[in-house]
């Protein structure tokens, strides 16, 4: 507040036109060191009570302002943090989508390194379930198979089979006898299927013949002698 404003306020005070709030402000202004004599008189007139109240109100207002400023500061910080999180999340989303697309494009085969790492784990699992263990790459099942007469047929098949994932191959490969059994079963099934087809065809043909015979009988009912 300038000296001119304070003097105007003093005049207003002496005319009895000031509000209690203006008087409190005036009390704060005139109570200073080295103030003019008029100001000192007004300060005495306003009294300790007005000055004390003015200081009290001023302190409380300052605290309120500080609290509001603190709240605004926190709110601004929270907004900035939220925006940063949103921006980071926005950047990550396309990257994740890209990763999914790349994963879809990638071949379905499992890399050899992963297979090697997975082999012991698979073996443990198999042991728990009671399944045959997974054999490692350097222990091919073929070498351990006993030489059987039927194996001569099966051996070329095993040899021809490409070893794409030898680490993951189970130790219980079908033996040559089993393979021969499977082949036999398949042939039987094939034969059975052929027989069944032929029976169906025969049935259809019989039905057709019956139908023709019935028609013939109907046409030549009068000429046939029973």
């Amino acid at each position, binding site marked *: 507040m300038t000296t001119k404003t304070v003097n105007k306020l003093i005049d207003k005070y*002496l005319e*009895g036109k000031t509000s209690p709030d203006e008087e409190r402000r005036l009390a704060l202004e005139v109570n200073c060191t080295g103030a003019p004599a008029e100001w000192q008189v007004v300060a*005495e007139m306003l009294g300790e009570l007005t000055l004390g109240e003015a200081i009290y*109100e001023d302190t409380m207002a300052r605290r309120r302002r500080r609290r509001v400023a603190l709240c605004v500061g926190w709110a601004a910080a929270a907004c900035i943090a939220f925006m940063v999180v949103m921006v980071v999340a926005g950047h990550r989303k396309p990257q994740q989508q890209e990763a999914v697309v790349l994963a879809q494009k990638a071949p379905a085969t499992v890399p050899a390194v992963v297979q090697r790492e997975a082999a012991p784990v698979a073996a443990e699992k198999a042991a728990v379930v009671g399944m045959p263990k997974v054999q490692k790459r350097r222990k091919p099942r073929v070498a351990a198979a006993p030489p059987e007469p039927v194996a001569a047929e099966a051996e070329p098949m095993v040899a021809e089979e490409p070893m794409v994932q030898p680490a993951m191959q189970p130790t219980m490969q079908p033996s040559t006898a089993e393979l021969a059994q499977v082949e036999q079963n398949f042939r039987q099934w094939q034969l059975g299927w052929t027989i069944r087809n032929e029976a169906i065809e025969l049935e259809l043909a019989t039905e057709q013949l019956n139908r023709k015979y019935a028609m013939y009988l109907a046409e030549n009912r009068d000429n046939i002698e029973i």
Partner: protein
Amino acid sequence: MDRTTFEQTAARLRPLILRIGLNFFGSADDAEDVAQETLVQLWRYCERLDEGRNVEALAVRVAKNCCVNLKRRQHLRVVKGGGHLQAMSAQLAPSPHEELEWRERVSAFNEAVGLLQPRERQLFEMRQLEGLSTEQIAQQTGMAKASVQSMIAMARKKLFNKMKGRKEL
């Protein structure tokens, strides 16, 4: 106001004063100190309190003043407790000469107020002590607002001239 009436009034005012102290200090102990000091000051002023006076408004102003004084004293205690700022504490605390001067000024002011017309004095004190606005004084006294304003202005001018003349001497 007699002692019994004051005791009743004090019991009614105590929670209000405690709230003011608690708002300012945020401590129940300090609020209690404020309440005690305020009631002591009101007790000293008790004889001058008429029945028609707004004791509540006066108590609020005295309580606020006590809060500020207590804060000042606490600050002074902190400075003195530090032990290394004696000069500063001496600056903050009024010297005996200043205190004597202040007492003289207060007694001269009270003397000047005593010389006012009874109505002028009543209106001036209502404004000065209770901190009521012109409208509130007009409502309480049943006078016109303009009359209240002119009487207060007259009282203030009289006091101003008296105090200024004393200062010039």
